């Protein structure tokens, strides 16, 4: 169940990626329409993060190609933003929230130029959009996990890109941060930007995304949420694990089991 689109913003063609001898992605082939808020879902080890890393040029590609706005990555880097997993950096780094967000303006400055007033104003504006303006001078290790994630999102906003790739932005954040980020992403796509999110929670996926990419080393499905989010395809993606989970949920409902009481 793979829906291809005309004039895609992102085209992944026949992509194969491996770590050493172990393949992590096989013949991935899909296209994305402009303005979509797409979720990449799949079980652990399905290659979700590897897929966006490969698109961002962080992993070596064995086969296939990737086009963004019908061009190669190097021609359109300024239009692309990447939000890595929060755990991928050392948050003890001596920098304030504002410092980190300003890094989102570096790509426009070129070699040797430092961020000036305009860049600082932009960074502050982006901090405000994620509700973090009070913490502009706070050292990043003194922020909570959710606040750190907001700083990462603000840095991506400061890039003023057209297409955003986010690796597990909802991992380890509280519900208010999650809701805030989702609202922000919906605003962005309403403005015509395209957002691709690696997501691990199938239950919230239909609420958040209008396009779903299902992955389990190979591409199971890619298309509008209402078309692809079927039980058959979910089972194909997650194997038997999913039904096991829903069985357990069913059982808990029937017996009125409450772990807080018993």
């Amino acid at each position, binding site marked *: 169940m793979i829906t291809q689109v005309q004039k895609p913003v992102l085209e992944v063609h026949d992509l194969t990626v491996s770590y050493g001898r172990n393949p992590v992605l096989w013949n991935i082939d899909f296209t994305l329409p402009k303005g979509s808020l797409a979720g990449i879902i799949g079980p652990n080890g399905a290659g979700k993060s590897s897929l966006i890393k490969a698109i961002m*040029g962080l992993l070596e590609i064995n086969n296939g190609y990737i086009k963004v706005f019908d061009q190669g990555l190097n021609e359109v880097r300024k239009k692309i933003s990447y939000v890595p997993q929060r755990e991928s*950096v050392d948050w003890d*780094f001596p920098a304030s929230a504002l410092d980190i967000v300003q*890094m989102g303006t570096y790509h426009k400055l070129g070699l040797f130029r430092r961020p000036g007033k305009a860049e600082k104003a932009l960074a502050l504006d982006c901090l405000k959009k994620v509700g973090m303006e009070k913490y502009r001078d706070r050292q990043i290790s003194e922020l909570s996990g959710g606040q750190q994630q907001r700083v990462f999102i603000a840095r991506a906003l400061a890039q003023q890109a057209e297409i955003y790739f986010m690796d597990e932005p909802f991992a380890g954040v509280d519900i208010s941060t999650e809701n805030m980020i989702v609202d922000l992403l919906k605003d962005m796509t309403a403005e015509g930007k395209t957002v691709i999110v690696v997501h691990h929670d199938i239950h919230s996926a239909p609420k958040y995304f209008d396009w779903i990419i299902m992955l389990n080393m190979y591409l199971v499905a890619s298309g509008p949420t209402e078309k692809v989010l079927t039980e058959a395809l979910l089972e194909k993606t997650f194997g038997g694990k999913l039904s096991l989970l829903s069985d357990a949920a069913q059982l808990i409902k029937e017996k009125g089991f409450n772990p807080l009481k018993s």
Partner: protein
Amino acid sequence: MTFDVNAFLIILTGTLIAISCGLLGSFLILRNMAMIGDAISHAVLPGIVLAFFFSGQREGIAIIIGAGLLGILATIIIDYLSNKVKLQNDASIGVTFTWLFAIGIILITVFAGQIDLDQDCVLYGEIAYIPLDLIVTENNTILGPRVLWIAVINVILVLLYVGFMYKELKLTSFDRQFAQTIGFSTSFINLSLMGMVSYTTVSSFEAVGAILVLALLVVPPATAYLLTKKLKPMLLLTILIGFLTSLIGYYLAYFIDGSIAGAMASVSGLFLLVAIVYVTLQKRTSRKPIAMPTELKA
């Protein structure tokens, strides 16, 4: 105390070298690469020997270039071992520098009959001799100690390097992947830093000796890291600690009549100890309950 020219020259040279080493070392510790200074300082030996063999001079630009090239080669080997062969990073460092150092030793013994060079003059300088080795022009004007001039050139180049590359060094130290996605050449930035570290260690070895150089690369930046929360204050504090280390270290050596480089390195260690005590005490006093932050509602 009257003004002592020799003391002034030694402290000044020590401070300049502390600044060069400290600024580069700050970025090394932020990249979890503090031990690479150790590695590079040993790995440059074959480069020094070969440069000496071809140029016939024991100091000068050839030695610096030879050392710089070997430093970069060492970085490339370490990178290859840890990223492509998937050896642990510290194992890669350990393998690379011992191997290159061993080759350097072999080269020295092979050429031993032909050249006047031994490990001592490569690895151990003596800061106390600084005022004795002067540059004298043809018409007998004294331009000051040779080693001081070498340190001045070094510190100027390091300041220019860090000044121009500040944004690049900061971003690649914090988030290498992100830097790569916005088109920064992270491997070039890394190699340029390693090249500067090689040049600085070799340029400073002759003046102050290996132990002090390695101490100045790591200890003042680590102290400043504990005491500050932002990169710029960390760099400035590193410079200040470097100056104080040189100053207090000199007078400590003077009063105990001991090795100046040893005293300076020990003083830098004491600064770190003071910083640890300060930070620990501060944590203890700030553990009292604080008011509920109002932002929690947001």
